[in-house]
């Protein structure tokens, strides 16, 4: 295989352009197998209140550590910049990474990120030494604000978290890609099928972050492999450059020497 898809994000180099979530799987074993089958080298994790008396027992975290891949903690569930900043600080200590998938939810119905709180939290966290992966809407001006603060990765949504609706607004996504050719752009949320991921990659996005599309599939492990191939194929397609669409048909087989040739009227 060509290594054309090797890429670098936030100072680390990876082969896979798929970032995968660790939630919603039918069992820990299926999660483990799906992550392996996906070929992903980056997995998202979260923090929640721990019950007293567990003495640090955490089978989930032990399993993730055994996978020996890069973890990207999130601030899921935060509704204010302050909550997100505190959660990010806690994540940095627990997971030992300055990477943070910054989520600040602004609406409970569609879990749309709050652009104002996102900018506020990003501003603080970058000054605190974090590498911020902002989960954002596909708003061009917001992208500029985040880039101005020092983000080198942006993660616009394809559609609402867990909706599986694919890319709602390819025009906006394409515009962000055009305006920020040097930033790492990841589609985060809303991917439902491998064909959605291919579309994202063919738009020139650098990667895809997804969870539900694999975890909620009838066969998560097989779907994980499907996404692995889709994202690879989508990137190759982007690198190769697709042909232009035409209104008229054009025969691919040579017409010279065609037997029984006749002219349509």
């Amino acid at each position, binding site marked *: 295989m060509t290594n054309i898809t090797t890429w670098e994000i936030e100072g680390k180099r990876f082969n896979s352009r798929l970032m995968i979530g660790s939630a919603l799987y039918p069992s820990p074993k299926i999660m483990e197998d799906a992550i392996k089958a996906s070929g992903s080298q980056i997995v998202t*994790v979260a923090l*929640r209140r721990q019950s007293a008396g567990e003495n640090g027992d955490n089978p989930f975290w032990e399993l993730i550590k055994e996978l020996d891949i890069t973890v990207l903690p999130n601030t899921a569930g935060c509704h204010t910049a302050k909550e997100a900043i505190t959660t990010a600080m806690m994540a940095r200590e627990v997971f030992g990474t300055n990477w943070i998938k910054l989520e600040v939810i602004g609406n409970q119905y569609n879990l749309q990120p709050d652009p104002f709180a996102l900018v506020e939290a990003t501003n603080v966290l970058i000054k605190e030494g974090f590498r911020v992966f902002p989960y954002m809407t596909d708003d061009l001006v917001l992208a500029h604000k985040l880039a101005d603060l020092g983000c080198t990765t942006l993660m616009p949504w394809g559609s609402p978290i867990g909706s599986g609706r694919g890319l709602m607004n390819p025009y906006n996504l394409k515009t962000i890609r055009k305006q920020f050719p040097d930033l790492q752009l990841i589609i985060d949320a809303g991917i439902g099928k491998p064909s959605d991921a291919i579309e994202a990659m063919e738009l020139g996005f650098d990667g895809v972050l997804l969870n539900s599309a694999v975890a909620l599939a009838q066969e998560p492990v097989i779907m994980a492999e499907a996404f692995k191939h889709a994202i690879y194929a989508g990137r190759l397609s982007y690198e190769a450059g697709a042909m232009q669409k035409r209104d008229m048909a054009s025969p691919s087989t040579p017409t010279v020497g065609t037997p029984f040739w006749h002219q349509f009227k």
Partner: protein
Amino acid sequence: MIISVNGETKTFKTEILTIQQLLEQMSFGEGIAVALNEEFVLRTTYNETNINDGDRLDILSPVQGG
């Protein structure tokens, strides 16, 4: 002394002075992070961070996430 720990009200008869003492008494292990009144507390300061009546502690550990 009454303290909120992960949203639950706890009453401590014995005097708990620091975060370190509370974590030990409640058998919280390693791999956690602590916020006191919604402010992050560095692990290295658990021994010197006092807890007062009415304080709210959040003790978090890794879980599945998307």
